[in-house]
């Protein structure tokens, strides 16, 4: 039963991880930009949700679309005004640029919000579901806040998939990812598609931040941890595919849960990076082993 409980915890965690990695994977796949800012965008979304709840009383789950919109605008502006200038440069240049931007944003947040760990304490708390009340044979508990955050996170990832596969702008994003030159011959303005893609990536980060604000502590120092998870998930699932993000997210969540139980929770980050290194050595194409197109 304990193993099942750990597995359930891992899946709940993994769903939320998938939403963190979705936007990162999209930007990496389409723009070939490794957006170091992504973790800071997650934290910014979490802070927005925190203040929206403590100051205005807006529930974090209701704040998800607002966080997404605000971060979309920020992402769009950052890409159009700054990152677009180096979009054709080697990947290391844009990586360095977003690294610089993330130092800037993290320190602005440190200055504005201090380094104190904060958390949205929902009043009343959402409580837990004791599964054995319904199915006596299965003795596990499910925290409702995690369950709800995971459900919304998976909805977000599904929304991203729908956007990319069923809308005209999504088709243009996929087309630009596959062949920039051919897309421009169709009259697609690649600079605008880049900015919209970056905006969508930031919106996913902001929404994920709002979703995890009732669960994880919020601090500017957490940005690198979120970035690291996004990285590992992309490598696990294979870069740039929505299904890969789901598979990678859940795989990492489950692995961390078991790892935290066996080695202690302080080693969960070590474990994910050990896994990253092993994967890069033995299976660099990811678990699904195919090049995704989102």
């Amino acid at each position, binding site marked *: 039963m304990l193993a099942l409980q750990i597995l359930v915890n891992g899946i709940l965690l993994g769903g939320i991880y998938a939403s963190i990695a979705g936007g990162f994977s999209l930007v990496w796949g389409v723009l070939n930009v490794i957006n170091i800012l992504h973790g800071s965008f997650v934290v910014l979304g979490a802070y927005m949700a925190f203040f929206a709840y403590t100051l205005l009383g807006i529930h974090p789950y209701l704040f998800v679309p607002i966080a997404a919109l605000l971060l979309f605008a920020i992402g769009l502006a950052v890409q159009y005004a700054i990152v677009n200038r180096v979009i054709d440069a080697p990947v290391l240049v844009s990586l360095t640029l977003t690294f610089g931007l993330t130092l800037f944003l993290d320190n602005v947040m440190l200055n504005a919000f201090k380094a104190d760990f904060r958390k949205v304490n929902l009043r009343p708390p959402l409580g837990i579901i004791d599964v054995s009340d319904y199915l006596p044979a299965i003795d596990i508990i499910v925290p409702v806040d995690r369950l709800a955050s995971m459900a919304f996170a998976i909805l977000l990832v599904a929304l991203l998939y729908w956007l990319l596969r069923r809308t*005209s702008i999504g088709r243009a994003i996929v087309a630009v990812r596959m062949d920039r030159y051919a897309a421009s*011959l*169709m009259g697609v303005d690649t600079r605008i598609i880049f900015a919209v893609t970056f905006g969508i990536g930031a919106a996913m980060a902001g929404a994920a931040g709002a979703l995890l604000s009732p669960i994880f502590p919020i601090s500017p120092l957490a940005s690198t941890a979120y970035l690291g998870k996004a990285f590992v998930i992309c490598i696990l699932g294979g870069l740039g595919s929505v299904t890969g993000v789901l598979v990678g997210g859940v795989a990492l969540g489950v692995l961390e849960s078991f790892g935290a139980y066996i080695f202690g929770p302080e080693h969960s980050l070590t474990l994910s990076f050990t896994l990253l290194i092993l994967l890069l050595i033995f299976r660099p194409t990811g678990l699904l082993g195919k090049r995704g197109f989102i």
Partner: protein
Amino acid sequence: MSQPLLSVETINAGYGLVSVLHDVSISVMPGEIVCLIGSNGAGKTTLLRTISGVLTPASGSVRLDGADLTGAGTKAIVRAGIVHVPEGRRLFAGLSVRENLLMGAYLRGAGTPEVRRDLDRVLATFPRLAERASQDASTLSGGEQQMCAIGRGLMAAPRLLMIDELSLGLAPKVVDELVETLAAINKSGTAILVVEQDVATALALAQRGFVLDTGRIVASDSTRALAESPEIQKAYLGAELELAG
């Protein structure tokens, strides 16, 4: 004589410091099929890229129906009615045939009745695409990919369709099929500018031709006259005539 649909006047263009085209002038009349022939590296693709706005010429002008499009950018040029089907087809892998075709109509909006009607028309023109409409475009055969690339171009409802290397890498039977289809497309009013390395195919398809050599237009005439010209026969048709003889 009526006004040309496309007129390119004394274009100089290239990449960075390397100039490729020198005072190139060509024209396409409404409803005409024109071919552009020349050996590798002559500047045919560069000329198409300059017309479609991928490259901005250092000097000279590109006009469609009198309207100046020089340096207007690909978006404005597609919207004005010039579509460039690139060499190597360059379909979007991972997107279905139908999605590829719809990408051609990107600037027109996917849901409009006109676009839906054009999609039906393209699928009727290329029945093999209709059979494979929901298939990933990268799984098509070479000939089908070229059909899809041409169909994608047609989805922009162009007044001038430019095709770079129509027959490259395709079986002769497929090329014949494509030539027939292009003639039918042309009959319905779309002018065509085709770059073709197989000079015999080019001269059979087009009414008029331009010969490009190291960035300069060295001959332009009706394809009939070009086919009879001793220089063209020697430079471009020689090997084939020997084979045929």
